[in-house]
Structure formats: C-alpha cells, structure tokens
C-alpha cells in the first residue's frame, strides 16, 4: 500500500467523476460541484507528489493551499453569477445560458 500509485488512482477516479458530472449535468450548481471534484483530485496529486518526491519541502502543499483559496474565490464568484442568472431567468439550466456564443 506504500506505492504512490495507490494514492493516485483514487484521485484519478475522482477526476473522471468530475469530468462525467461536468459534461452531463445541466444544473449549473451541479456542474460547479463536479468542477470542485476535479480541482480536488488535482490537489491530491500535488500533495502526493510532494510527499513522495520532496518529503522535506512544502511546495506542493503550498500549491494546494493556494488552489483551495482560488477555488473558494472562484466558487463564490460563480455562485454569485449563477444566482444572478437565476434571478433573471428563474432557471439555472446551462442550456439556457448560451447568449455568450459567437
């Protein structure tokens, strides 16, 4: 159980779930949740590689820390936008939000 691969596989599964969710859900919040999954999977990778490759250093951990901060910011903003869309459309279906095409 000590091999690095055992930590990476769950992260990969998590990522793929994120991909699946992001591509199939229509509710924008659900998409956002999938996005969080993917981000989280990537965070795990950072930490794991840091732990195995450079055990004494903190770079990967710090990266994750920043990623969490950015994810928080991004989520807050995204939710603000979604709520705004909901206000105008009474709906948060992603298929209705195609005005930004072309």
């Amino acid at each position: 159980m000590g091999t690095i691969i055992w930590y990476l596989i769950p992260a990969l599964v998590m990522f793929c779930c994120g991909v699946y969710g992001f591509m199939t859900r229509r509710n924008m919040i659900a998409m956002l949740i999938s996005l969080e999954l993917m981000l989280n999977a990537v965070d795990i990778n950072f930490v794991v590689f840091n732990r195995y490759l450079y055990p004494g250093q903190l770079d990967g951990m710090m990266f994750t820390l920043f990623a969490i901060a950015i994810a928080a910011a991004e989520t807050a903003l995204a939710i603000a936008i979604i709520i705004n869309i909901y206000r105008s459309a009474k709906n948060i279906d992603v298929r209705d939000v195609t005005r930004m095409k072309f």
Partner: protein
Amino acid sequence: MDFIIPLLILAIPLFNFLLLGIGGVKMSHRLAGTIGCIGMGTVLVLSYYTAFNYFFSGNEAFIIDGVRKAATIFNVTWLEFTKNLVIKLGFLLDPISAMMLIVIPTISFMVHVYSLGYMKDEKGFQRYYAFLSLFSFSMLGLVVATNIFQMYIFWELVGASSYLLIGFFYTLPSAVSASKKAFIVTRFADLGFLIGILILSFYTQTFNFADLTNNPQNVLLSTGGATFLGGSVLTWALVLIFTGGMGKSAMMPLHIWLPDAMEGPTPVSALIHAATMVVAGVYLVARMFPLYLMEEFALQFITVVGAITALYAAIVACTQIDIKRVLAFSTISQIAFMMVSLGVARPEHHEALGYMASMFHLFTHAMFKALLFLGAGALIHAVHSNNYTAMGGLRKYMPITHWTFLIGCLAIAGIPPFSGFFSKDEILSACYSQSMFWGVWMSIVAGMTAFYMFRLYFLIFWWDTPDYSHHHHKPHDPKFAMSFPLLFLATVSVFAGFIPFGEFVTWNGHEYTIHLNTVIAVTSVVIALLGIGAAYVMYSKKNEWPARLAGLVPWLWTAAHHRFYWDEIYLFITHKIIFNGICRPIAWFDRHIIDGTMDGFAYITNKASVAIKGFQSGKVQMYVWWYLIGALLLGAITAVCWM
C-alpha cells in the same frame, strides 16, 4: 553694367503681379489699371535703356572689335543639383535677348494700355492685370535666361500664365476647355524639352548657354559618340528640346491649342498668342543655334516641320470664319516661316543669313501681328462677334481701325516698304540659298499669306455691309486708349523694315550688311501682289465666286475648314484611347483586381472565421469536449513522439 536696372525689369512685373493678385480685390478698376500700366511703362523705359545700352554704348563687355558678346549681368545660384549642374537665375544680355527686351515690353505696354479700354467694366479686371504682369515677368525671365534650366522654369511659367489668361472668362466652358488644352498640349511638348535637357546636361554637365554654345565641338565630344536607336544622343537631345519649342510655337502636330486659345481676351491673344510667347520656340532654337549647327539632322527636322506647318496653316487660314482664328493660323504659318529660316541657316550660306532673317521676322511679325490682333479686338468690340459674317463694309464706320489693319495686312503680305517685306525677303533668300525646293515652297506659302490676309481684310472692310441697326449703336472707332496702340504699332510696322537688323543681330555677333537680292525681292512682291489681286477679285464685292470655288473641290474646302480634322484626331486619341483605353481600365484594374485581392484576403479571413465560429456555441459542455479531444490529441502526439 549695373545689375539694378535689369533686376528691376524682372522685379517690377513680379511685384505688380503679387500686388494686384493679392490686393487687387480691394482696388478700383482705375487704380489697378493705372498700377499695371505704370509698372509696364517703367519696365518699357528700363528695358529700352538696357537694350540701347547694349547695342550702342560700345561697352567692352558688349562689343569687342565689332563683335557683339553675350554679357551676363548677374547670375544667382537658385538650386544646386550637383557641383556642376546648378540652376542659376540670371540676366543674359546678347543680341537676341536685347532685341526681345524691346519687343516684349513694347507689345506688353501697348496691350496694357489697350486693355484699359478693351477690358473696361469686365469682372476681374484687376485679376486680368495681375496675370498680364505675371506673363510679362515670365516672358522677360525666359528671354534673359542664362541657362537652359532657367529657360525651362520661365517656359513653364509662361505656360501657366497663358493658361490663366486663356481661361480668363472662366464661366465659359469653351474658354475653360481651351485653356486646359493649351496647357496640356504644351505640357506634353515640355516633357520632350525636359528629357532633352536631361540628356544634354548629363553629357555636358552644364546647363549654361555660354558653355553649350561657345564650344559646340566640346559638347559633341562629351557625348562620346553615344547613340540611341540610330541617332546620336546629341541629335536626340536637340530634337527633344525642339519638341518643347514645337509645343509653345504651335508647330504641327502640336499646333491644335493655338486656335482654341483665341477664347481668351483679344489683347491677350495679341500679346501672348501672336507676338511673344508663341515665338519662344523660335527663340529657343536661336538661343542654342550653334549647337544645332552641330547636328544636320536636327536642323533638317526643324525645316521640314516648319515648312509643313507653314503650308498647312496657310491653307487652313483661307477657310476660317472666325477672324481671330484666321489670325491664329496666320501666326502659326508665320512662326513656321521663322522656324524654316532657322532650319536652313548655315554659316556657309551668307553667314547664316537665315538666323538673322528669322530674328528680324520675329521682330517685325510681333509688331504687325499684335497690330492685327488689336485691330481685330477693336472690330469685335464694335460688332460683338468674332465672325466675319457679322462684319463687312466697316471701312466707312471705323477709319482708324481700317487703315491700321490695312497696314498690318500689307506688312504681313510683304509689300514694300512695309516691314514684313524686308524680313520675309531675307527668309526667302535664306531658303533659296540653301535649296531651291524650300525656296519655292516658302514663296508659295508667302503668296497664300497675302491671299488669306487680304481675304480677311476685304471680307471685314468691304464685301457687303450687313444691317448694323439692331446694335445699340453703329460700329465706331474705339476710344483713345485702344486706338493709340493701333496707331503706334502701325507706325512701327511701316518703318521697322528699315532697321539695319544685320548690324545688331547675327548668329555669331559679327556685323552683317543686308543687301536685297533683287530677283527674289521682285518675285516675292509679284507673288504677294498676285495673292492680293486674287483676294480683291474674289472678295472686294459680294459675289458668288468664293462659294463656287469652294464647291469646286468640296472635300478640300471642308477638310481645311475643319482644320484637316486634327482636333478630332486628338480628341479620339485623348478620349477614346487614353481616357477610355488606358485610364479607365487602370482605374478598374485598381478597384477590382488590386483592391479586390486585398479585399479577397479579408473575405477569406472573414469566411474562415464564420466557418469556425460554430465552435463558439456558448454550450460550456461542448467546450469541454473540444478541450478534451485537443488534450488527448496532444497527449497522443507526445506519446508517439516519445516512443
């Protein structure tokens, strides 16, 4: 000689131009006219003084041992191309420029005075005087040019002032198009002149007349025997320079602008298109005469062009209705006389008699042709029409005009003792001395000259008196301002022939005594009298002869009446070939091919982006798909390359 007076000769007209051109709007007609006349009068006095000083003072600078020298009064650098090729503005005094210093201010002053009456109450009177001053300035600058480029500069300036003056009545479409035509045709000729200058200056490395004409042998040597299309470069240069002269002097086939130029005010025609500007071509050839002597072909070319033009113009003059056009064609014909005379001049024949004769004729012709034009102006003023069909029997109404016009006609026909006789006789002598062929040819043209001039004279003053009662007033002689120039010029035309011209103007500065060749003199007088007689028979009283004669060879008459369709040919070339055949296709090519290519690039870019804009569907999930495909492809490529 001091440089102040020559400088003033040029400066006063220029100053007058600026003064009248800028401040004229605020001036009264009287003031503008006075300024113009006083200015020109001053120039007249100063240039007479200069010319007499040149001919009679015996100053070392002007004459040494009886040989007249060219003297450069001043010469200021204006533009330096290279160390050798420098345009200088200067003042050259030599026999021909001194002579022109008499001719130009005289005619110009007469026209200034005449215009006081003729142009009275015209709108733009001040502008008219400004343009006259500009013209006088340019023409004087042209004749005193010390180098060929200075001549070209003033050559262009006279062209422009001629344009402005022909188009003086700018609201008339005919005047506008005539002025345009004059400018463009002469411009075309000037192109030849310019290229000629370029060729000549390249080989000789100088623009200076003195350097060019003092040692023509060196010029020939400097070309190093270079040839182009079979002719030596010097021949090319000289012929091209002569092309410029052909344009200004209205030689065939560049003569078409001169008859149309008669749309300008009549005094202008007298000044520019009869007496001064149109002889610039003759003056140019005379100025470079020693150089032309180096190239036999160039001289022959001049002779042939001149002779053909002379005959052509004389034939056409016989059939024109507009009196100014008759005079215009007679001008063309007479200038062609001068050209031929230069063309046949050779030092080995009577010390290049032709050169002297040409200048002599230039002098006398300026006087009597200006007289005829001013007379025509008086007639037009009186009957308000340019056509002789509206005239007839006017000798009773306008005695002064009649007599002065008659003197002009006699002078041009070459009847002794009027001035034209002497100069024309010299020309004919020169022709005969060179070849019998040209002699006979020119004698025939001289006879025709007498015929068409007297045809005009009889049709105006005799023939049949039309009904003048519908005019406000009967035709009458003009006021003093207009009749004074007529009388003055008539007097000059009578006596100018007695000037011992050979003592003043010869090709090499040596004096030359004119002696009449009795045989030629008698023959030419007889021919002239025959011409006058024919005119008398046909036109002294209203009769059917002219019409019948015209009916005899109708095609010839019609063709001559239409000036042998030269205008139509030119119209065809300019409109059909150049405008529709070159300009329009080029413009089309530019809009559709060149610009189309550029637009085509934009179009392709645009279409391509429209084609791929579907990717930007706004469906976020599709983006992920595309992204994923891209990422996987990249991954695959990396993997393949890695392995």
